[in-house]
Every structure is written in structure tokens, then in C-alpha cells.
């Protein structure tokens, strides 16, 4: 066990993976100086400029080159700098990477990890703040990961690099400095949720940094005798249906909360799945708590209007326990 932050945990995962397999290489803008958030700090010195490779500001080329290198025997880790910029490489990710194995009849695998820093962080405004995880869950061929703790950022990134599928790896910018104990021996399997806290009154399903807020809300609610079970999905494709359905069957209530826009969000998939498989267990209507379908502002007070906070999660749970049926978010 070692104490490290979310950023250091990802760096250690890459370091260990690069020591274990010489075919692993990282490519992205500004990696040589440690990456725009310092996630690659020290790796250039350790592994050299070929394996920790700088790139021109050419997202389509970064992604396309990574695919070509994977088809020719390498295992690339792609850095997209901000998830928003990955949209410049959408053809490469969606039309090429996700489809290469299938279209070519299984002649190749694409062992590739595409790291996309997501989320609202320090007045970054509309083009540096998005959380677009639900888009990628819609694309056959891709695995979608949303680690929310240092331990998960270590174990999940290692699992992502080791697996032969392309993984869209979404790290939240707001928690780079979040500290926690990391056990290097702990292995992650995609599709495994983690139950952050056990409870009997309501199930709250979340992922990424929103899961941390849900956990904080659950601790406050516990002081008032409300017993909340918080499930952090961790990976959205595949996702842990079994854990969610089993929990809802026990608690009879479901709130799904995420930072991204509520409309068309992955929360809708979670809610629909529960409706299909456990509607009979529900004691009250399910509720979603996501962002309004609005853009993310620069001014801090405007930025706050689209933020899903710990207080909002707490209030939604109180409403649901009290039998209130007003919608949390009229979108």
C-alpha cells in the first residue's frame, strides 16, 4: 500500500505497464514535459522520447497513428489532453478504432487506451469541461471507464492497458490531487462496480467524481438516520447491472446521479434497465439527477448553475425518502 493522488496513481499504472511490456508507448501533446496535468511527470526521463512521445496538435493523427501502431504490434496509450479535443478525432475513434476488429473479420485486435480528461474544473468554460461518457457507451467495440479514486485510477488504467479492446478512459480533472491508499496488487475487472457504502433505504448509482459527491451526501444523511447505498459503477461499458438490480431489490428506491447532461445520459440506461428487471421492487418513482441541457459557463456563479452538488444529491434523497415526487431537474 502507498499513499498517492489520483494523478500519481495513473502515472504509476503506466510506469508498471511499461516495465512489464516493451510494446506499450504513450503519445500525446506535451507528454515530454509531463503532460498538461503532470500525469506523465518523470516518465520521459525513465523511458525515453520514443516511448513517451510528444505529438503535434493533431488529434486525428494522434488517434489514427495509435490505431495503425496497434494493428502493427504496439500497445498505445493515447492522451487527448481534454476530452473535448477528442472530438477532433471522432472518425478515428468511432469509425476506425471501434470497428477495425469487426470489419476485418477478427484479423486484428486494437489494444489501445484513449485517455480523456473530463469534467467541470476551474472555470474552463464550454470547450474544456464536458463529460461525454454516454456518447461512447453507444459505440459497439469500445470499453468505457470512469475511475473516481486513486486506487481505481491505478487498477483500472493497468487493466485498460493490459486488455486487447480499445478503452475510452475518462479521468475527472477535478480530482487529480485527491489522495488515497493504493494497493498495486488489487486487480480490476471491467464491469465491476464498487459499493462505496452499504445502506437499506435507497440506492444511489453514480460514477466519476459524482460518485465521490454521492458518498459525501450519504455520510451526511447517515447522521440523520437515512441509510444510503452508493454504487460507483466505475466502468460504464460493460456496467454492473447485477449489483444495481440486487441493490434496488433490497432498498426499493433508485436515484442515479451524474455530472453530465441528464437528457440522453447514461443514467437513462440504468433507470430503463431497472424498470425492465426490477420495477416490481420499486417503492417510489426512480429519479435522475444530472446537469440541465445547458452549456458550461466561465463565470463561477454561472458555472455553478449546471453543477450537480453534494447538497443536491442529499436533497434529492431526502425528497425521495419523504415521498416527494417533484422532479429534481426539469429538463
Amino acid at each position: 500500500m502507498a499513499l498517492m493522488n489520483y494523478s500519481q496513481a495513473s502515472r504509476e499504472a503506466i510506469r508498471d505497464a511499461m516495465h512489464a511490456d516493451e510494446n506499450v508507448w504513450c503519445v500525446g501533446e506535451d507528454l515530454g514535459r509531463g503532460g498538461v496535468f503532470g500525469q506523465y511527470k518523470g516518465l520521459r526521463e525513465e523511458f525515453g522520447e520514443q516511448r513517451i512521445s510528444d505529438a503535434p496538435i493533431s488529434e486525428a493523427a494522434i488517434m489514427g497513428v495509435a490505431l495503425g501502431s496497434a494493428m502493427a504490434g504496439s500497445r498505445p496509450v493515447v492522451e487527448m489532453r481534454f476530452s473535448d479535443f477528442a472530438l477532433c478525432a471522432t472518425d478515428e475513434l468511432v469509425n476506425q478504432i471501434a470497428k477495425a476488429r469487426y470489419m476485418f473479420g477478427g484479423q486484428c485486435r486494437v489494444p489501445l487506451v484513449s485517455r480523456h480528461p473530463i469534467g467541470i474544473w476551474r472555470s474552463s468554460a464550454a470547450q474544456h469541461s464536458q463529460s461525454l461518457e454516454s456518447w461512447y457507451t453507444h459505440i459497439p467495440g469500445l470499453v468505457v471507464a470512469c475511475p473516481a479514486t486513486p486506487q481505481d485510477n491505478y487498477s483500472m488504467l493497468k487493466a485498460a492497458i493490459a486488455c486487447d479492446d480499445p478503452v475510452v478512459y475518462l479521468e475527472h480533472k477535478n480530482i487529480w490531487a485527491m489522495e488515497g491508499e493504493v494497493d498495486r496488487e488489487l486487480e480490476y475487472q471491467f464491469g465491476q462496480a464498487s459499493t462505496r457504502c452499504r445502506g437499506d433505504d435507497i440506492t444511489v448509482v453514480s460514477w466519476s467524481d459524482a460518485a465521490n459527491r454521492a458518498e459525501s451526501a450519504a455520510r451526511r444523511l447517515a447522521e440523520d438516520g437515512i441509510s444510503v447505498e452508493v454504487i460507483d459503477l466505475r466502468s460504464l461499458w460493460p456496467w454492473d447491472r447485477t449489483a444495481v438490480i440486487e441493490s434496488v431489490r433490497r432498498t426499493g428506491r433508485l436515484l442515479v446521479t451524474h455530472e453530465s447532461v441528464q437528457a440522453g445520459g447514461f443514467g437513462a440506461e440504468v433507470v430503463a434497465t431497472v424498470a425492465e428487471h426490477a420495477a416490481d421492487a420499486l417503492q417510489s418513482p426512480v429519479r435522475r439527477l444530472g446537469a440541465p441541457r445547458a452549456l458550461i459557463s466561465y463565470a463561477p456563479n454561472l458555472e455553478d448553475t449546471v453543477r450537480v452538488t453534494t447538497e443536491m444529491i442529499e436533497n434529492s434523497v431526502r425528497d425521495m425518502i419523504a415521498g416527494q415526487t417533484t422532479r429534481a431537474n426539469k429538463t
Partner: protein
Amino acid sequence: MSKSRATRGSNLDSDRALSLLTMMERIRAFEEQACLAAERDKLVLGAIHPSIGQEAVAAGIMQAVNPDDFLLSTHRGHGHTLAKGAEPLAMMRELLGRAGGCCGGKGGSMHIADFNVGMLGANGVVSANITIAAGAAHSMKLQRDSRVVVCIFGDGAINRGPFLEGLNWAKVFDLPILFVCEDNQYSATTRTSAMTAGDGAAARARALGLVDHTVDGNQVEEVADIATQCINRIRSGGGPEFLHAITYRRTGHTSFDPAAYRPADEAVQHEQRADPINRQRELLTLAGKDKSELDRIHTQAQQEMTDVLQQAAQSPFPDPALALKDVQDIGSPEQELR
């Protein structure tokens, strides 16, 4: 343009010349059969993009590479793939969506790949193969491997972003790759010159510092000569090069396209004046080869591809269970349905 063996006349390497003619005849015959399968037999359900008239580029470039070198191609890639060494029966089965196709019937004409012969895929998105090819070359550099990559794209591709991004990348990282712009003068159904600013493909490559060459893409000896020189330099560490091969697309954009948007006699004139197969036959005749020998090459290619179509048409469709196979290992649709 380089001084070729062809223009030196008596220096013609007749073994190579015959082999180039044979490959062009096989490509032509394959595509003629594919067009018949589409139009006459209704056996090809999707679109196919013939390269009839462009065979010298495929045959000339591919004779310069090794079997284990890599190729990335386009939606108009039957010729490149065949010349790289793929089996025509597996290719025809793929066009017909049958079991035993190169990609098991999942890709069709636009996504043919044969990794066994280094063919890492045709592509349905114009220009997309350029960055992917640079990646295959980047991997060779990382692995200190001496294989080289050939990336063939059309003239339409030079107006998409990946052209700039991929060429810049290849130069910055000094990668072992030959970019070939196979210029058939049409971007789908529009003349490329009407939609392209500046001095065109080679000038753009030159602006990025690549060594560039322009060649008559209907003269297979010249294509083969220059490609061989390029590949030799690239393999010995000379960095990326760019070859602009000017040719002509005799058919419409797809086999179903009558190409009514161009002058009625344009294709006919091209056939009379610059058909690459006719030109190669003339050259071989001048070098003393019998017409009967050249005719036999033609007949054998016709027979081979007629048989290929017949066999492919008798092949079964793929097992329906394969529809959900090879999407991904983790979170696969097969696991979802359990």
C-alpha cells in the same frame, strides 16, 4: 519524372514486364467479373468502386515491396489488394458477402483486409487511412523493424485534414512510409481540380518537406521503376516520400454510376490513348514478344477470374452467429445476450 527502362527500350526487363502485365490483366479481369456480379447477377449487394484504367498504379507499386511490408488502401482498393498478394477467391467471396471472404463477409468491398499479406485494410472514409498508415510505420520505428508501409489514397483525399496531419507526422518522426496519391482526377463525381486550391498533391507534400515525385500512372514500367527507387531509399532510413501517380478512372464512382457528369467520349479517348494494359502490350511487342503469348496472359486471367466468381457464388453465406462475434472481448454482445 525519372528516366525509365521503358523509355530506354532495349533495356526492358522482360520477366518483370510480363509479370506486371499479368498482374494488370488479373486486376482488370477481377474487377470486370465483380462488375458483372453486381450488375448482371445481382450478387454484390453493396457498392463497389472499380479501378478499371488504374491498374498500373497497383501493379507497379506493389512489385516494389516485400510480402511482409504493409499496405493501407482505399474504398477503390481491389487492385492494390490483389497485387499485394491476396487470394482473389477470398476477395470475391468478400464482395459477395460469403463465408470464406477475407473478412468473413463482414466488411465487403470497402473494408477488404488481408493481414496475412500485410494488407491492413481498405477504408470507407476518404483520407482516414493516411494517419493509420503513419501509425503502422511509427510502430516499425518503435520496434526497430525494417518493414516499410505503403499508403495509397486518391486525389480527393488531399482535401481532408488527415492528409496534412498524417504527412506532417510522418516527416516529423521520419517514418518508413511511401505515400501514393493515385490521382484518377475525380473526387466521387466531381472533378478534383475544380475543388482543389494551389498546385495540388505533390506541391502540398513538398511544402511539408517530403521528397516528392510525379509519374505517369498509366505507364506501369515507370511506376515500377520509381516505386522501387523510393522503397529502397525508405527502407534504408531515408524517411517518408510522396509519389503522385496520375491516372484515370474509366468507370463511374461506383459500378452503378454511368458517369453522365463528364464528356461522353472522355473515357473512350483515354482507353484508346492511355490504357495501361494496351501500353504494356505494345512495349512487350516492341521488345519482341509474340502476340500469342500476350493473348494467353489475357485469356488465363479472364479464365481465372471467371472461375473465381463462379466459385464465390457457390459459397454459403456466413453463419448468422458470427454477426455478434469480434465486436469486443469485454462487454461483448454475446455476453449481453446471456
